């Protein structure tokens, strides 16, 4: 990212300045899988954001006159035990699932970046202590850690975000630390130090932009994992409480009617699968273009 800008300065303005979006698109274009991922994600996000415009039905209010209608006709994905349109609930549910997933990744990435930067930059005891704590967090299966955090904080959406976020901090911290160790002794950091920049400025203004690429890849792939965890916790009844639709909650609702109304649990699962698949496709593409070293891992 910064290379282009530096090049431009060096080359005296021969290279056009591209916005981050243009750069993103230029890289993504080379990977057909990633394009499919972007298109799928766009459709899913738009249908969640504009659910109230697209669907004529209410996601929460029961309508017992049309309960348990099979898919087809007025209700493409059928209706549930209270006569609510399953497709509508999935679209509204996408708002929560995607939002909670993104915030969890945001929490994990932000905390992971700060810890990784400090660990790699200061080294010594700071590094030792922070990395041992990360090792300990990593040595617990993440869903178990999330469950323990929810036990402590209590169920609820915000706590789910924290629980999922905290469990994935170490992956970000470790990758950033590794990158910082490589960047710490480069000439541009020495130059910044010689110019009188303080530690915080060097870390956030100079090193951070150069170590972000793998973080972006990890955050994209991490979003896929976060969406799965949000759904799992919702299914267990530890996330948002019904009747608000969330994908895991809708599947849990449909579980009891698996025998005579398979569609209630099946379609939200397909929605999760499509979203996670799209995110994985995009993440794989980003990884291949932004950081070829990570390929195949």
């Amino acid at each position, binding site marked *: 990212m910064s290379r282009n800008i530096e090049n431009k300065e060096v080359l005296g303005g021969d290279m056009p300045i591209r916005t981050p979006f243009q750069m993103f698109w230029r890289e993504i274009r080379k990977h057909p899988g990633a394009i499919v991922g972007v298109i799928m994600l766009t459709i899913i996000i738009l249908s969640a954001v504009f659910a109230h415009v697209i669907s004529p039905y209410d996601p929460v209010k029961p309508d017992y006159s049309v309960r348990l209608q099979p898919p087809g006709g007025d209700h493409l994905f059928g209706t549930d035990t209270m006569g609510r349109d399953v497709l509508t609930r999935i679209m509204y549910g996408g708002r929560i699932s995607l939002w909670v997933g993104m915030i969890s990744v945001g929490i994990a990435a932000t905390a992971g970046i700060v810890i990784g930067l400090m660990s790699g930059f200061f080294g010594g005891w700071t590094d030792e202590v922070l990395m041992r704590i990360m090792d300990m967090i990593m*040595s617990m299966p993440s*869903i*178990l850690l999330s469950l323990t955090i929810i*036990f402590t904080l*209590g169920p609820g959406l915000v706590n789910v975000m924290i629980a999922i976020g905290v469990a994935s901090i170490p992956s970000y911290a470790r990758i950033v630390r590794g990158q910082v160790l490589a960047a710490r002794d480069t000439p541009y950091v020495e130059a910044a130090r010689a110019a009188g920049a303080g530690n915080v400025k060097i870390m956030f203004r100079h090193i951070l932009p150069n170590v972000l690429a793998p973080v972006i890849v990890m955050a994209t792939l991490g979003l896929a994992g976060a969406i799965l965890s949000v759904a799992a916790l919702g299914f267990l009844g530890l996330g948002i409480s019904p009747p608000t639709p969330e994908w895991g909650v809708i599947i849990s609702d449909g579980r009891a009617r698996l025998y005579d109304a398979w569609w209630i649990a099946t379609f939200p699962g397909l929605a999760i699968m499509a979203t996670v698949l799209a995110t994985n496709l995009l993440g794989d593409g980003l990884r291949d273009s932004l950081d070829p070293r990570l390929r195949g891992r």
Partner: protein
Amino acid sequence: MTKYIQKRIVSALIVTLGVSFIVFLMVNMLPGDATAVMLAEFGATAQEQEELRRQLGLDRPMMVRYWEFLSNALRGDLGRSLFTRRRVVAQLLEQYPATIRLALAGMGIAITLGSIFGVTAAVNRGKVFDTGTMFGALLAVSMPSFWLGLIFIFFFAVRLGWFPTSGSATWRHLVLPAFAIGLRSAGVLARLVRSSMLEVLRQDYITTARSKGLSERIVVWRHALKNALIPVVTVVGVQFGFLLGGTVITEIVFARQGIGDLIIKAIFSHDFPLVQGGVLVLAVVFVFVNLVVDLTYGFLDPRVRYD
């Protein structure tokens, strides 16, 4: 090598100690502490709550309680359930075989399917089988395992009647949950085995094996696979962690007995000694499996140097 083993065991012990502290700290950090939650339904007075706190030993400093918890845990005592008053260790001992059986069966399925599909995809690189397998692997890693479990129940148990819908009595009860939990890891492993196999198939010793006139089947499955699996071993440890975590939700879906089922019920009833014990036991199993995996890696690949 001996030095490495010693070092690795010591570090596993330190990590176990750290994990026990994290679990203890989190479970005991409950806002308003456990007694408030327990007594909320009964409308107890502040004095009664104080009495319960003293009975449970919650009025003492955190570090004192941790030390007591740790020394008791080392003697095999993880306290008693707040509700059933039964010993936590006894309950965990009853439940853990079912959980370990499920995780191992899932791992077996993951390794078998992952290796077969990964190798066959690598050998048929660029062909329809390869593309299809890799897409299937991507689908497998994108599916929520609890949902897959429900689909399995609907299709194989309700519709076809091949397997029971729930329970954990016989091996037939194990098939659907093991597949539900193992397919995701199978997808991860298939992708990894494929890329590792492609790397190995380019090596000189494979060309040598072929030029000796060995059949392609022997070259691939005897010579190449053995080496292609080495990097896979490291991932097995991480995947086993996923599977252990996954058992929690799979046990709920299939109404199976197990530690996961115990933990979830304990979370809902605020039974903190049970949550603490259950999580600790699964975490320790995970640390132990990773230790074994790391040591195995050293034996499998003598080129690895441990410094």
